[in-house]
């Protein structure tokens, strides 16, 4: 596959790590952490397309995640459909919501767009909480069936989730270096220039919303079946901001960054959990404070994010090495485009 050639070593390293992770000699608990990271990655990759590429901020991404989760949970637990069908519907319903939302707020930019998506997030969370007859309200739902993926086990779930993460990753990387990806990036930089190149700005913004909604819905559906129980609490602003933080930390312009961001934030979360046993004052909502602090630091000192920053660093190291060897090299001016 061309994608694999293009991203070469990095992609193989990624595949290798994903494949061997469950067999590392660590607590089985971390396998379920890895599954959760998978859900988050699917959401953040979609959010990266929307925010990092097309330049449209969303403070309501957790709502799409929740819509996906509840859709799949309701159709499987209440109406007895198979979880695979549930996942499919879990992508369609958020897509429809994303379409309607996208149409409604097509003309908004910057703060206004942020406010509108924030409001959408609240509406969805309140809607889920209040629609008790279907969603179980604040008490939530139980007995959501597991996904039968060649049988039911956590190991199989791990591979299913990460296979889907990989699909989403490859899809998004391919998209980035295509007509549509370039249109997204063009809109981000200059809507006037994009329009004069023949790009229908509204319709591409809308498709960015829809694709990010579909990804978040898929992740939500997987989440519901993995957890087996649901309540509306994790689908609010707090979670939306967490997704945003992941994307910003990894580097908004980088799809890989979205994945790395999800890993980093979850890792910090786990470290805090461990530390809590030793340091008494770490109780309460310390996560939020730490994530907020990280977000501020990143924006202040490394606004481009981890992945683009490290890529630039590696590049400059290479250049230095070459310079040390006294090679004149035009290639050194070449830099890889956003990945």
């Amino acid at each position, binding site marked *: 596959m061309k994608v694999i050639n293009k991203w070469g070593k990095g992609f193989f390293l990624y595949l290798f790590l994903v494949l061997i992770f469950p067999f590392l000699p660590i607590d089985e608990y971390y396998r379920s952490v890895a599954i959760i990271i998978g859900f988050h990655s699917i959401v953040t990759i979609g959010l990266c397309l929307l925010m990092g590429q097309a330049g449209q901020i969303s403070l309501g991404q957790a709502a799409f995640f929740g819509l996906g989760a509840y859709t799949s949970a309701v159709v499987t637990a209440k109406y007895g459909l198979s979880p695979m069908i549930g996942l499919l519907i879990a992508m369609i319903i958020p897509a429809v919501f994303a379409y309607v939302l996208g149409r409604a707020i097509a003309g908004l930019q910057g703060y206004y767009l942020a406010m509108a998506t924030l409001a959408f997030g609240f509406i969805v969370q309140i809607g889920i909480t209040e629609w008790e007859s279907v969603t179980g309200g604040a008490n939530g739902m139980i007995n959501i069936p597991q996904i039968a993926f060649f049988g039911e086990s956590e190991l199989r779930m791990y591979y299913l989730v990460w296979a889907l993460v990989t699909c989403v990753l490859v899809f998004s990387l391919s998209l980035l270096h295509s*007509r*549509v990806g370039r249109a997204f990036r063009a809109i981000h930089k200059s809507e006037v220039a994009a329009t004069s190149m*023949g790009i229908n700005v509204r319709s591409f913004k809308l498709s960015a919303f829809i694709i990010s909604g579909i990804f978040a819905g898929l992740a939500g559906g997987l989440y519901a079946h993995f957890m087996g129980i649901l309540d509306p609490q994790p689908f609010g602003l707090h979670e939306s901001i967490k997704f945003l933080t992941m994307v910003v930390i990894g580097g908004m312009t980088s799809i890989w960054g979205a994945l790395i961001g999800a890993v980093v934030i979850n890792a910090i979360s786990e470290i805090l959990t461990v530390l809590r046993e030793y340091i008494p004052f770490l109780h309460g909502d310390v996560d939020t404070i730490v994530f907020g602090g990280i977000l501020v630091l990143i924006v202040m000192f490394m606004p481009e994010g981890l992945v683009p920053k490290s890529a630039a660093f590696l590049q400059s190291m290479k250049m230095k090495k070459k310079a040390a060897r006294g090679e004149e090299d035009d290639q050194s001016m070449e830099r890889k485009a956003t990945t």
Partner: protein
Amino acid sequence: MTMLLDIRGLSRDFGGVKAVSEVDFHMNTGEILALIGPNGAGKSTVLNMISGVIPPSSGEISFENQPMLQVAGHAYASLGITRTFQNLQTFDDMTVVENVMVGMHSKGKSSLFACGIKLPTARKEEKEMREQALKWLDLVGLPDISSRLAGSLPYGKLRLMEIARAMVSGPKLLLLDEPAAGLNHTETAEMSRLFKEIRKSGTAILLVEHDMDMIMQVADRIVVLDQGKKIAEGTPQEIQENKSVIAAYLGEEEEELVKG
């Protein structure tokens, strides 16, 4: 020679100020028409209206006998009107070839889904776009830098890249907003040569420019605006001898005097 662009009674107010008033002119296929005038004459406003960026307050614009005022901004490129910008609008975090490939957007059809899973049709289209973009980078004199980030390019090269981006879709009318601004003599001469090449390929050029040497060298006809009104129209020779044009330029101290 057939008429390509026809403009009648074109006006534009900005909050009561008449930036452009009652301007008429036309363009033929494959000609270079220069739009000149002192600063604030309304040249860029006219160009922005022709490219669909701002709507006129009144008047008509028709392109190949089709009225353009109801046409959506993003449809101009596929109808055959493309442009460059006075203050460059390049995509700095894309490579040079990607920038030019954005110019091919209107020629492509691949959907988001087709691009994401790399359908054979999408791959083929991508390959054609890249080839065409590289061809145009070559034509404007920017070979060998296609994989550099646009943001790392000097100003003069970005101007050329913008022209490649506007030309890659094979437009019938190219609108250039001060393409020689900020260029040195060598670069300007190179630019003039390029315009003649473009005309040879059949694309008409509407040129808004201050550099009189360049205009006299490349323009087939000239339209002169002053304070939003058309004050003269004719061949470079006729314009050089036109008294009202000379007067308009003499009124502007910082403008170069057009020698009669």
